[in-house]
């Protein structure tokens, strides 16, 4: 193990490490702690300039109730879920099919198709912006959650295909071959043999894609306007414009926006990290 395990070092270093760890964490997360603390401050604290001192009163319930009752935050939040969940399911469904095709079958353009999906991951969104907006208008989905769902499914399919295909390549191929010799149809092999083995990949991708789609801001501003369709990332931005100097409310809103992906990460940490490394670092 590198660096040397701390248990094998001198007591002085061990002690120093024990102190350094929480101090470093505190500094690292200071901006977030500030937001969390601001989100429970009273309006009086904000007007009197008490931003960094101890709050004069804790207004946890007042502030969080205020943002849900006095603003369309709840609508934005609901939109985020309505966009993210179908997008995750759609991308995973499509990419388990493409990943299966590219991982199992040998055909001439296999690598070309695979590279097409991979390359699609890395392009700048701006090269898609004008045509995708236009397409959404023509399909009649512009300025609705469906515009976002459709785009996210298509885009995330690229990343998911990369991951699924590489994952399927690590599965025991003999098993599939044996099923084929038995005369099991391809569709049944996919459904009964491969899909059950792909559970870890499915879990990893769901958490990761959830976070990606939830945190999307660019497409939210390009394809939707207003609280009836916009997800929370765009919502927070417009609320920030409305609540000028009401930092306690903006902070509370930010905490709400950040919470779902954070929870997702904590609940499915192992899968999340496996997904992030693109399966490249085992």
């Amino acid at each position: 193990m590198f660096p040397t395990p701390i248990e094998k070092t001198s007591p002085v270093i061990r002690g120093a490490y024990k102190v350094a760890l929480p101090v470093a964490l505190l500094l690292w997360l200071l901006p977030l702690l500030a937001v969390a603390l601001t989100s429970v401050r009273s309006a009086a604290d904000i007007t009197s300039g008490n931003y960094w001192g101890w709050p004069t009163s804790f207004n946890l319930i007042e502030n969080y109730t205020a943002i849900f009752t006095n603003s369309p935050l709840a609508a934005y939040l609901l939109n985020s879920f309505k966009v993210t969940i179908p997008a995750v399911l759609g991308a995973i469904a499509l990419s388990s099919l493409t990943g299966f095709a590219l991982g199992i079958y040998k055909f001439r353009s296999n690598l070309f198709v695979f590279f097409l999906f991979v390359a699609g991951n890395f392009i700048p969104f701006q090269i898609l912006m004008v045509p995708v907006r236009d397409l959404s208008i023509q399909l009649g989905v512009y300025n609705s959650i469906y515009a976002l769902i459709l785009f996210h499914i298509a885009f995330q399919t690229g990343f998911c295909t990369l991951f699924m295909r590489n994952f399927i390549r690590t599965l025991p191929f003999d098993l599939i071959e044996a099923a084929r010799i038995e005369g099991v149809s391809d569709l049944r092999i996919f459904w009964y043999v491969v899909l059950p083995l792909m559970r870890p990949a499915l879990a990893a991708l769901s958490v990761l894609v959830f976070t990606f789609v939830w945190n999307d801001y660019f497409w939210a501003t390009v394809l939707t306007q207003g609280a009836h369709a916009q997800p929370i990332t765009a919502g927070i931005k417009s609320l920030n414009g409305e609540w000028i100097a009401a930092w306690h409310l903006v902070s509370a809103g930010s905490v709400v926006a950040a919470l779902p992906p954070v929870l997702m990460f904590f609940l499915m940490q192992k899968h999340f990290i496996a997904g992030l490394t693109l399966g490249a670092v085992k």
Partner: protein
Amino acid sequence: MSYVTRVWQDHKAAITPWLFLLPGILMFAIYIVIPIFQSIAISFYRWDGLGEKTFIGWENYRELMRDDIFFTALQNNVIWLVLYLLALPAGLLLALFLNQTTRGIRIYKSLFFFPFVISQVVVGLVFSWFYDPSFGLFNTALMKIGLSPIAVLADERYVTYGVIIAGLWPQIAYCMILYLTGLNAVDGEQIEAARLDNVRGWRMLWYVILPQLRPATFIALVVTVIGALRSFDLISIMTGGGPWGSSQVLAYYMYEQAFSEYGFRMGYGAAIAVVLFAIMLIYIGFFLAKMYRDEKGR
């Protein structure tokens, strides 16, 4: 037997993979592949997004060559790219610091990873307050040590760097997690052997550890470069490209021109996007070439 059934019977093996690919390829073609070519085509037109398109040849690109803000954006993209690369050594350092087995270390690792999980919109807001000239923590700290406050986001000299620091925060967290996973897979026997040969500290890191971390470094490099060139959210939240276009980057400038308040300029925006795409293609090519070598080596 109908014609369709006969074709199916004769070419079953060849057709099957394409049936599995069909829905994914269709979606990907409609939303990703075709729009790329459409954008390239639009960049040769003048178009307000609604009315008739007027073909103007290379005029949009000629205009770019006379556009000072375009060059500011290009230059800022280079600054982003170079400074973003700091996320690699910083992430490695953090990973080395956390690569221990003391009690509770797992919680520490996930808490350090936090900035990456939250939306860049929130990161942007957080850092806007941090830099606020009247009450932000940054200026409070400056005044504590006797310096005069700096309005980072309103100052042409500092604004880009201020935004980049905000972007580095989650990016370092990402690189850290890549390196932590990489460190997990480092061969313990090699380390022990090197220790017996009295190789320690920096030399151990350089000659024994880093070579084994190459896959992690590669992925970290790819995602960091892409992240730097994609920077949009933070600019939009923190500066809107200002003051006076001094913090522009191509990704945001494209958006601003296409949806300009003085009338949509889709063609001009598309031309900016094509330039950004061309820059990105270099990295995509580099990544695919590496993947191709790995695939052939299998």
